[in-house]
């Protein structure tokens, strides 16, 4: 507390006020963040059907997790979406940021418009993509057919690879503008004098990018990479809406897999789903830590 509150009586009243002002945050945080997390850990060691804990089963749920091929399929898909999302979104948003930092007509309009998807709902836009990529009455097939690029409609969502790309396209649509804004903010913090002296030394546009902009963006890459990783592990809305994990179980992701075990209408298995939840948290933390471990040293050096 600040030294100005010297009076003892005053200080006591202050403490009560502090407690009261902090209480709502602590209450909501404990009830809906901390407690649920501890709950998941507890349930994961039980056989639990949502009504009552039936028995403690030790590590049985975790053993089952290791042999659950469809779970590992969804983990693998999650990793795939992370990497593919990164490969598409980061270069696209960096390129757009660099272009929109230059003298471009209508660049404020473009910046604002590219960020617009960030305020829309992934689930709602997901349903629009679902309509757009429908096999027989979707506009994507309609347009491709009308210009003669394809003869028969493509079954976008029935084909695993294509369905995954539609999901990546949807996520790219929603996120590249956000990453662009982050890159722009980082670019604008680079001192202009650097570019001026580079020009005096005869540097061209490409050199200015590779020698100044790109290296000095360094601090932004970990932030954006962490966000891509986090977003990918949160991935639920777009997959649920576009394919619901199908065809079969081929496009399922961790969050969807867990959700289905929790809320399945045909015999939910909360104990096992909790073990999967803990598994998902650990995997997310591991990937995050691995990433920080790999890059941390490099950034200290530079």
């Amino acid at each position, binding site marked *: 507390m600040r030294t100005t509150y010297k009076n003892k009586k005053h200080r006591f009243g202050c403490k009560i006020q502090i407690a009261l002002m902090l209480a709502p945050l602590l209450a909501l945080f404990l009830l809906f963040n901390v407690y649920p997390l501890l709950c998941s850990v507890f349930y994961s060691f039980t056989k639990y059907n949502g009504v009552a804990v039936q028995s403690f089963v030790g590590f049985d749920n975790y053993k089952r997790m290791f042999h659950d091929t469809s779970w590992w399929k969804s983990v693998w898909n999650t990793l795939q979406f992370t990497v593919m999302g990164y490969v598409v979104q980061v270069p696209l948003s960096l390129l757009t940021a660099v272009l929109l930092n230059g003298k471009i007509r209508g660049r404020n309009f*473009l910046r604002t418009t590219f960020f*617009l*998807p960030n305020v829309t709902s992934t*689930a*709602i836009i997901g349903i629009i993509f679902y309509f757009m990529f429908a096999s027989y009455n979707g*506009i994507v097939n309609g347009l491709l057919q009308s210009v003669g690029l394809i003869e028969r409609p493509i079954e976008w969502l029935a084909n695993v690879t294509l369905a995954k790309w539609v999901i990546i396209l949807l996520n790219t649509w929603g996120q590249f503008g956000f990453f662009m804004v982050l890159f722009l903010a980082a670019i604008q913090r680079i001192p202009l004098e650097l570019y001026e002296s580079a020009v005096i030394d005869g540097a061209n546009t490409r050199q200015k990018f590779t020698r100044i902009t790109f290296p000095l963006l360094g601090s932004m890459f970990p932030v954006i990479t962490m966000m891509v990783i986090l977003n990918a592990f949160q991935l639920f809305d777009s997959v649920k809406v576009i394919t619901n994990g199908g065809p079969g179980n081929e496009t399922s992701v961790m969050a969807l897999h867990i959700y289905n075990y929790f809320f399945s209408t045909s015999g939910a298995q909360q104990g096992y*789903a909790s073990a999967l*939840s803990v598994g998902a948290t650990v995997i997310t933390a591991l990937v995050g830590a691995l990433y920080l471990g790999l890059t941390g040293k490099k950034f200290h050096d530079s």
Partner: protein
Amino acid sequence: MKILKYKISKIFIYLFLSLLLIFTLFPLVYAFFGSFKSNLEFLAGGSNIFPEKWNIENYIFAWREANFARYTFNSVFISVMTTVLTLIIAGMASYVLVHIAGKMKGFLMALMGMVMFVPNAVLIYPIFKMCKMLGLMGSLWSMVLTQTASVLPFTVILVTSYMSGVSKEIEEAAEIDGCGFFGIFLRIVMPLSKPILATSALFAFKNAWNSYLLPLALSISKPELRPLTVGVLALKDVGEGISSWNIMIAGSVISIVPMVILYIFMNRYFIEGMTSGSVKG
């Protein structure tokens, strides 16, 4: 030669940006015009974006028959209440967090930072149980409280870092003038933090309005509690299936348009909030 090269690269740049602009706007434009097509025309497909004959029957049907009046009300209620609660709770807590020091504060901040990394799906079932236990299940407050809890960690971290920049001299002067701890908060610090509060409000509103996973789970046996997102998508899996596409597209537009209008007027706050939050965080 150099000028020619320059011009060609300019053409490519504008071409690239135009394609990206089309990519960004296409789904929104497609949904908007599609919502005025009759279901027959919408299902016929083809390459037409604009409706042959404009009609607003989809909206009338969605609003009157498909319960979208109720869904819209739910969305507005949840989002407005979440925004108000988030501002009050995060404002007070951040002010306190700026003024106290010690282990407890560091621990709380670190814990909140960590919780942001936990996938939402992991918490959803215990949250569902908790709402049942608290007797919130039949009411929209279950969504308001859980939604508030889910945006609070980020908001508190954001607001705390802003409030710690508020001049201490002003606060001290107010104290000398006889202003108490809470008085300083209400009369000095809150008004001075308006920009970050505006950003936080928009962030909370946006999250509540667009959220899908939480309300999906919390309205699972209570269709009348659905917000717009859940209401639109619930139509995807019902028996009629394809026959309600027109209602779904009208519902989607009802959900998108308010956010787009809000964004057009407040885009500065949206964009600044996002960048300041992640650059500092």
